[in-house]
């Protein structure tokens, strides 16, 4: 079972390849705001949720797919880890 660090690393890799192609990976730190900064727009958020559900075989409830739970890599890792 992956720990939060592993989830963060894998999610960072996904976000870099899908939404931040060509950007410096070092700038995507664990506390960078993804939704409130606009890195993840509505459609990108849907894509991230689908990716997390498929990768970790979890269900992210509708009320969880928001800024409170998906805004940083730390938030995402906590949410995913809580469901494993």
């Amino acid at each position: 079972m992956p720990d939060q660090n592993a989830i963060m690393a894998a999610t960072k890799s996904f976000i870099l390849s899908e939404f931040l192609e060509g950007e410096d990976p070092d700038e995507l730190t664990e506390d960078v705001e993804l939704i409130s900064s606009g890195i993840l727009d509505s459609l990108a958020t849907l894509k991230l949720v689908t990716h997390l559900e498929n990768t970790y075989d979890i269900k992210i409830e509708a009320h969880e797919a928001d800024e409170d739970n998906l805004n940083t890599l730390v938030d995402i890792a906590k949410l995913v880890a809580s469901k494993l």
Partner: protein
Amino acid sequence: MDFSWTKQQTELRDAIRAFARGSLNEGLVERDREGIFNRAGWDACAKMGIHGLCVPEEYGGLGFDALTTVGALEALGEGSRDNGLSFSINAHMWTAEMPLLAFGTPEQKAKYLPRLVSGEWIGGNAMSEPGSGSDAYSLRTTAIRQGDHYVLNGSKTFISNGNVADLLLVFATVDPAKGARGVSAFLVEKGTSGLQVGKKLDKMGMRTSPMAELFFDDLRVPVENRLGKEGAGKNLFTDSMTWERGCILAPAVGAMQRLLDACLAYSRQRKQFGESIGNFQLVASKLVDMKLRVETARSLLYQAAWKKDQGKSIFLEAALAKLWISESWVACAQEAIQIHGGYGYMTEYEIERELRDATGSKLYSGTSEIQRTIIAPLLSV
């Protein structure tokens, strides 16, 4: 992979199809002409359990899964030619009941869901505004917190069930500067001071499904009637729209099957040049195309519902289903008119209405263009 229905599912579908065929079609030409909502039909559908197909039994529903539900709604659309009534029921289910289930407090669910499931109350969803359609989150209706109330001001348009609804899910922004993150949802009951229902909107098709404008003039909504957190409106709307896109056209698949059956019967019975018109390859090829559209539309519908039942999000599958079923429904209706020739163009034959009803499906719940805009990035284009 098992494509068959269980005995219970088959019996449910057969019962709903027979009920709809026998109870919902009389007087439809006149209701369509006058734009009359069939309230008696609404109540009869509620008694059949249709309004609560996928609502848990604790709220009076039947508690079926999504696949069984869309299968039942497909049967409704196959038996009933009143596409407007089916549309009103679906709007009620996917844009009022389901958001309540997903985001409601126990008190909100206990108060509203039994009334919606029983059909006593009609639900509606108020998002679109004169200046915001596809760009939904640019809405301008405001909700300002004042003590234990929110005060709503603004207007909405194209609201399905708007003039008959007892409960409206109204979207407004608590802070326009926050953009989509300021959008919140509120449960507004009919008769609340400050809620004005505008004129009934006259439209091309789905004329038996009522639609109206709404106006909010210092409409006071108790804080306990906010659905979800403040600012959760976007999240809630995304969830509601995903259900809607995935399932609202289940009756349309049934309607397409009904059109195909009618065309097959007509092609056998109608003689020209001394033989059935179905023997002419140009007619037969239209029937083949219709069959292909019905089957592929059905597959996408079932796939979206099945995946939902597996506990997965269906953003892609719902958009694919919405896009293909709506475009297939329009194409099938056009072919049905062509096969019926001049008779298909006549109101009394009840084929031309299908095209008028189908056309709106490429607009509501996100236009075909919006569906493609959703699908493309989900393919990592």
